[in-house]
């Protein structure tokens, strides 16, 4: 019986994300909310692991009270339970404060064998919460997983997607995995699960439930602040060379010399 936790995030649907000029956090008013698209792949992978290995899938999210909608929607895909972390004190959290809060909740849930997250959220695009959460829980993580294979009951072989090809790594449970869209094709929600999700009691845990002081979490507990958001400069053209190292070194030297001249 694997204990599987999937961390999801409710995000604004629009690509055009605006920042609050005072707090520099995301402005959510008046924009339709969806489940972060990458997280649906995390939910699907968790369900597939459960179906193959047995276990229980619990959803976890931190957010304003309306994040409950995202949990209910995600329950429609078939997870067993959900917990919402919501408190005014959690507001304005950076990635660290978010990961810290999620970590405490996972401890309160009695830990997990496997934690899934999407590779990043489409609003903040940091891709930090998953790995930070693993660090806080002191467990290994593999980011950008595109394929999982159990080699025995508590060992996973993971294909980690890279710019060119993939890395094959092994990890022992408990572990945290962040997934890319290539990992699976999420199923359709089920009507019966949606009906059940509508009535499912979703516990809401706040500051006191998790035993935090207000200054440890939310904006107060954050080390970083977003000052400015801008698209990164486009990456230059890249090439992949293959061959014996001495040959490649010679080729690289030649190329660098040419570049130095022009």
């Amino acid at each position, binding site marked *: 019986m694997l204990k599987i936790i999937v961390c999801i995030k409710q995000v604004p649907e629009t690509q055009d994300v605006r920042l609050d000029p005072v707090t520099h956090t995301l402005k959510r008013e008046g924009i339709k909310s969806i489940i972060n698209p990458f997280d649906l792949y995390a939910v699907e992978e968790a369900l597939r692991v459960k179906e193959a290995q047995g276990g229980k899938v619990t959803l976890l999210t931190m957010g304003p009270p309306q994040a409950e909608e995202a949990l209910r929607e995600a329950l429609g895909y078939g997870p067993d339970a959900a917990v919402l972390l919501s408190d005014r004190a959690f507001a304005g959290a950076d990635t660290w404060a978010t990961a810290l809060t999620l970590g405490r909740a996972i401890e309160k849930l009695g830990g997990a064998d496997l934690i899934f997250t999407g590779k990043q959220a489409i609003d903040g695009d940091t891709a930090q919460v998953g790995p930070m959460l693993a660090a806080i829980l002191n467990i290994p993580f593999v980011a950008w997983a595109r394929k999982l294979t159990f080699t025995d009951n508590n060992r996973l072989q993971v294909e980690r997607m890279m710019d060119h090809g993939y890395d094959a790594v092994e990890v022992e449970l408990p572990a945290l995995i962040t997934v890319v869209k290539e990992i699976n094709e999420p199923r*359709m929600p089920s009507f019966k699960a949606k009906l059940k999700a509508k009535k499912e009691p979703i516990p809401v845990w706040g500051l006191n439930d998790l035993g935090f002081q207000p200054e440890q979490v939310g904006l107060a507990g954050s080390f970083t602040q977003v000052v400015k958001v801008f698209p990164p400069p486009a990456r230059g053209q890249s090439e992949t060379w293959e061959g014996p190292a001495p040959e490649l070194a010679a080729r690289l030297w030649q190329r660098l010399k040419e570049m130095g001249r022009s």
Partner: protein
Amino acid sequence: MDYLLTEEQQMLRDLARQITNERIKPIRAELDEEETFPWDIMNDLAQADLCGTVIPEEYGGLGLGCLENVLVLEALAMGCVGVATTYAASFLGAYPLLLYGSEDQKQKYLPPIAKGEALAAFALTEAQAGSDAGAIQATAVKDGDFYVLNGAKQWITNAGEAEIYTVIAVTDRVKGARGASALVLEKSDPGVSFGKKEKKMGIRASTTREMILEEARIPRDRLISKEGMGFIVTMKTLDNARPGAGALAVGLAQEALDEAAAFAKERHQFGVPIIHFQAVQHLLADMATKVEAARALVYAVARYIDTRPKDYTKVAAMSKLFPTDMAMQVTVDAVQVMGGHGYMREYPVEKMMRDAKILQIYEGTNQIMRNIIGLALNKEYSKKK
């Protein structure tokens, strides 16, 4: 328009729309072009629990009514009528069992249909018997504990793909229409084979084949209801399916309207979007009005059927006749609004226009619908005198 749907009905409709948007629309042109049977989408529908909407819960379905069924069909038809026909035809095959099947038959055949593990099909039409259901030639002859079937069923939707078939065959030639019976056949039964896949004008994602019965020997307990009930089973099955055909028409026409209106806002001629021209506005206005009228009729009839009235043949025929004629007009007009673009296969409305035509033909032609309604009126007004 708000049709005062319950939260559960809206949830069901939204789920079907999600399948349409995420799974059907992205590949509908390809399914049409390549005439591929949409197994992946059927699996999505099964995963979503939508294969058993009208099948009672004790047989693994959702136990919902006609209104819920039409809501799902309308939403799926917004994606592709070929796909929606495949889905709806399975219910057409299941209705004889639902309405007249024995407890054993229901236990055996309904759960796999409801779970989406098996598709069903309804085999009535023959080369010389379509509208004239009394002219059926296929025979089912009793032989001890068996029936032996011979004949050929033409243009059977889902034939060759479905596992479960309800077949109408003559058990007593002398009795005419009262000599027809309904029987369940399985794809794997001896003597059952299928003809080539027909090439159709539209609904190309749906598969249509001949079902050939040559000394097909099946156990006696495959008879649905009693011998001689075939005609009644057929009529009741079609009564239940007709609002569904109307719903497909509403979904299709709505989608054609959406495409045409969106195009008219984008397309500029004489320096302005063409939606600014009254000629285009009037076309769109008529289309929108007809779609809403048809939807109101389909929902009203579906709600009426859900009150389990004794006789709903006339209104069921109306709920098929008006929307399907409407869908033909609206899709033709959608192509007209879009002009040359509408005629190109790069845009979805030419397919919608091709798909619309079959709705006026299958599950009883619209001429037969008028006969049914006329006959009912004649009866009603005789009583009133």
